[in-house]
Each structure stands twice: as C-alpha cells, then as structure tokens.
C-alpha cells in the first residue's frame, strides 16, 4: 500500500501537469475577456489532431509537430475570437459562454468530419515504463511533465516581466483604465487568444501522446479544467496551476477510497465546495492574473 500510495500521488502530478496548461489558458482568457471560454476543450482536440496530421500524415517528428501545433492552434484561437467572439464583445458573459459552447460543437464536429470518429495514436511506439522502488513512470510522461512545467514557468515570467504580460494584467485589472493609458485592448485580446489556444493545443498533443487522440478528448477534460480554474480563483493564471495540480491529485488519489465510477463527481464536488466556501478560490488571492 505504501508503494501504491506514491504511485497514486505520481499519477495525480501527471494529471495535474496535463491540466495545468489549459487551466492557465482558461484563466488568462477569463481575466481578459470576462467570460468562461468552453471552446478551450476543443482547442485540446484541435491540438491533438493537428499534431496527428503533422506527425502521421506529414511524417514530421514529434518535437516539430509539437511546435507546429502550437503555432497553428494559436491562429485557430485568434480566428475563433475574431469570428465568434469579437462581434459579441459587449454582450453579457453568459451569452459569450453559450457562444463558446457552440464554437466547441462546431470545431469538434469539424474534427469528426475531417478525421472521423476513430481513435488514433501518434507514430510513437508505446514503451514499458521505468520503475523505482515500485513506482512506475513512462518516459513520455516524464517528458510531458517537464515540458508542461517549462511552459508554466515561461507563462509566469511572461506575465510578470514582459511588456505584453504587464499590458495583459492591466487590461484584466481595469480595461477602461488600461485603454485610457493607451493600451490597445483589442491587440491584447488578440495576443491572449493566441497564447491561450497555443498552450491548450500543446496540452492536446500531450494528452494524445499519453493516451489517444479522438474528437472527444477535449470534452473529457473540460470539467477538470473548469474545476482547476475555479479552485485557483478563476482569472488568475498563477493559482490556476495550483488548482490544476490539486484537481489532478484529488481525482487520482481518491481512487484509493472511492469507487472508480465516482471520478467525475470529484471535479463537480470540488466546484460546488469551492463556490460555497471559498468563492475567491482555494488560494484566496485577490490579484488578477
């Protein structure tokens, strides 16, 4: 049981690592645009399939496919924003949230139309995991976790020190004041959409490597991402990372005591509990982003 417990903890960290990038993206977009963008889920699917096209159809190696996916997913995010959200900028958040659900249906079905319903895998042989003291981890999983950590740190640095990051924080904090100060808020939205979708697309290829690629892959994660963002106090990219690891950890470790059929209930349960008792998020930070 001792060894097993460590394995569950490790599983939780791996899940958290995969949830973290979309949770950051979700929070960033929420911070700037002030609505929950559920289309994030399908950016994961898009990422998975774009990388599939690059890796399997075009025969590119995975690292190249990874970069290409991030670049293209960013454009997808910008395209969606310009086509679907920009004309609705002034509407209420609920309207935009519903639009984002509509967008995800359209994108998901486009993926079905192009690639069909079958599950797919990248051109990567599945390898036996490595073992230390009864705890197992796959080589790809370790790489995924590392890459994810690098991006987490990079986003934090970007937000803290870069000009873009500062402008993003300014717009998130007070859009009116930011625009008075001469910050081009449409430009910031443009770049945030790009960054958010690119990060989420990266998570898509990670999920695809870790398990499999299918049109539902984003939908399967959206509840956990949403839970992570809420736990982190929606709108804060830093604490979203904490939320992601917390949700990943809770979903996996709960397996020890709870029947496996209650896994989804963990995400829902956490959303309810946090909204009831700590509506500002688990880490109660007031600062945005």
């Amino acid at each position: 049981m001792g060894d097993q417990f460590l394995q569950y903890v490790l599983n939780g960290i791996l899940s958290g690592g995969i949830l973290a990038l979309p949770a950051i993206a979700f929070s960033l977009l929420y911070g700037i645009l002030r609505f929950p963008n559920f289309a994030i889920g399908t950016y994961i699917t898009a990422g998975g399939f774009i990388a599939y096209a690059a890796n399997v159809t075009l025969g590119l190696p995975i690292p190249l496919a990874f970069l290409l996916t991030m670049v293209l997913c960013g454009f997808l995010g910008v395209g969606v924003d310009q086509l679907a959200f920009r004309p609705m900028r002034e509407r209420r958040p609920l309207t935009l949230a519903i639009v984002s659900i509509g967008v995800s249906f359209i994108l998901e079905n486009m993926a079905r139309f192009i690639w069909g319903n079958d599950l797919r895998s990248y051109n990567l042989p599945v390898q036996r995991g490595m073992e230390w003291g009864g705890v197992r981890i796959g080589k790809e999983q370790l790489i995924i976790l590392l890459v994810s950590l690098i991006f987490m740190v990079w986003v934090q640095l970007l937000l803290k020190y870069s000009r873009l990051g500062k402008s993003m924080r300014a717009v998130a904090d007070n859009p009116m004041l930011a625009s008075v100060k001469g910050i081009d808020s449409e430009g910031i939205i443009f770049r945030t959409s790009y960054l958010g979708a690119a990060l989420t697309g990266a998570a898509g290829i990670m999920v695809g490597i870790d398990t499999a690629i299918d049109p539902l892959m984003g939908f399967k994660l959206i509840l956990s991402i949403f839970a992570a963002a809420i736990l982190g106090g929606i709108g804060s990219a830093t604490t979203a990372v904490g939320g992601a690891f917390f949700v990943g950890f809770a979903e996996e470790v709960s397996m020890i005591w709870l029947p496996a059929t209650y896994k989804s209930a963990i995400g829902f349960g956490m959303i309810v509990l946090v909204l009831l008792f700590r509506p500002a998020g688990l880490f109660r930070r007031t600062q945005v982003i």
Partner: protein
Amino acid sequence: MEKNDKGLTRRESLKVFGAGAGFLAMGFPIKLNAQEPIRLGTLCPLTGAGGPYGPQMQEAISRVVKEMNDSGGIHGRQIQLFHEDSQTNPEAAVRATHKLIEINKVIAIMGTWASAVTLAIAPICYNNKVFDISVSGADAISDLQDDDYIFRTQPNTFVQSGVYGQFALEKGWKKIAYIAIQTPYAKTFGDTFKKKVEAAGAKVVEYLIYEANKPSYRSELTKVLGSNPEHIVIMGYSPDSIVIFKELFKMGYKGGVVGPGFAINQKVVDNVGAEVAEGIYILDPGTDPQSPAYKNLVRLLGTTDINSYAAQTYDHINLIALSLAEGKVYFGTGIRDHLRTISNPPGIEVGSFQEGMKFLKEGKKINYQGASGACDFDGKGDILSRPFIFSQVKSGKMVTIGWIKG
C-alpha cells in the same frame, strides 16, 4: 405577385415542375394502385463508441431491403427505410426514436447497439406497439415489462459471462481481475463470471467498474495491478480499451487479457501497436460463417470483413420481413406475433428473405437460420444460443483460434 393567365405564378409553376422532376429523378415507381410502403427504422450507432460497427450494420439492412424491394417486396408491398444515428447515446437515441415513430410512422426499429440505448428507447417502442430488435446484451432488457415487443439477437449477459467463465477455466486461469466500463451489464456480467470461476476454485482478485470518457485510467489500473492479477477480463468499449491497453503495458503488466470484440478490434490493435496487443484474447458472440445466410451477407456487402453486429442486423431485417410475410399483419404487433413461427424449429431452414418467401408462398413452415447463429428465441425475446469465437492477437493481427458453442 400577379397571377398569369393560367392562374399560376411563374414561381409556382416552377415549383410544380421541380417537384415532378424530383419525383421522377428519385425513381419512385409510379403505380396507380401502389400500396402504402412498410415503414421500418434503423437506429444504428453511426457515431460514438459503436461508431466502428454502426455504418456496416445499417448498410447490411439497406442492401437486404434493396433486394427485397427489387424482388417484389412483401406480398407486393415495398419496404421504406428511415435511418437515424443513435450516437451510442441514450438521449440522442430517445429523440431519434420519437422522430422515427411519430413522424416517420415506423412499425419496427432495428439495430440498437449499447444496452443503455436499448433500455432508453424500449418503453417508447412498446408503448407505441412498435417492435424493437437490438444487438444489446444487458439482462435488464430481458426483465422489461415489454408486452413482448422487445427482441434481441445478442445473447444475454448470463449466456455470455458463462462462456467467459468456461474459457477462463479451460485456460486454467487462477488469479483474475475483472474490469468493466460502467454499463447496465457490467455488474451482472461480473457477478455471474465471478460466481462461475470461484465455484471452480479460481479467484477474482479485483473487481473494478470504471467511468467512460476519462482521459486516463492510470489510477484505476494502479488499483487493479495492486492485487497482482495474472489475467484480466476487460469489458470495455474500444475508446477506453485503447487507453487501458497502453497504460497496462507502460505499467509493466505482462499477464493475459481477454475481452469482447467491442473492446478489442483490429483498429484497437493498430492503435496500440503489435507489441502492446500481443497475446490478447478476444471472445465474442460470433457469426456462423458456414451458414448460407452469412454467405449471402458476404455477397451483399462485397466483403468478408463483416462485424458480428452487421451479421445480426442482416438477421433483424430478414426476421422482420419474414414475420410480416407470414402473418400479413403489417404492424409491430404482427412482427411480434409471428416472429417465433418463422425463426424457431421446426420448419425448413432458410437463410434469406427470398428463400423464405418461396416456402411461405407454398404454405410451408420455415425456420430462419441467420448469419449470426440459429436465431431461436425464448419467451422473453432472448436468443437461446449463439456460436462464440475466440481469437488472439498475434504479431498485430487477430487470428481465430477456436470456437465455443454458447
């Protein structure tokens, strides 16, 4: 808009001509005394977890119906098919069923796949006196107070899990883990299997039912492997099975695995790779490839790569058409009341509608022998027996290695 001399606007006359041309283009036989066609619905899983099977299931029905209609239909009546996609989703299936029954006025629905789907639409069918025949396995379907409108060609869980138990015992398996996706049959299957193997001295060391649509099953499998099973029985669907097989491999599992064809098919094997899939057993209610019905289906579909559900839907449409031909009562009730007459012994064995029709016209009693097996039904509309095939993955290919009589 102004009317022209003939009292028709240009637009209206275009509409009339357009409709007429369209009518001809669709190839409707214009018969002055044409009888109403018999309306039948299909509700195959074209998308969702059943997506790999649904299209062929529907295609089998369409091809059979085309030949029936070309050969004069059922006593001169044509069959008109209405296709809907169950999406392997009970809610979508319920909406589709309402549409099929209320708008298309079908008298029977064929080809529902997942048990959850069949259970969801069953009440709508029997309350509307619509006949339903499915390929679902859950026992709850037998227990429906369905007024005998609900039939199926998939053996019930009891028959299936019995065969799985028999298989495990014949292989001499001792420490077995049972893992299953959350479905109406997961528990009945597991319980029956456990009882059967434990009575013979084997042990079910872990019994785990998991949720569908999870991105990973790492912790579920951590739990399963914690009990050190030597063999695993998996009752999953193919999307989750792909994830599970990869993860089992990464986690260092080296024991045996057996599961049904809806968990392990060639696509799953291709996806996980030959090394991961090596040695996995597939044990499935099979087809009867030696039967004339199966050979007829091969001819109709133009392929020998036929999934066992398509073989069943071939039987569905033939059973329904022959029941209607026998009873000449063109309602769901007519199918219900005459199906056992044409499917169960005694009688002349037939494997297609045309063959059956010939003997029915001569006033003889027939016994339909299907592509999926004997197609004999008990009082609950369950199939009495079914051949089981077991195959094994060897170097990335599924190789048939034996048969078990269900």
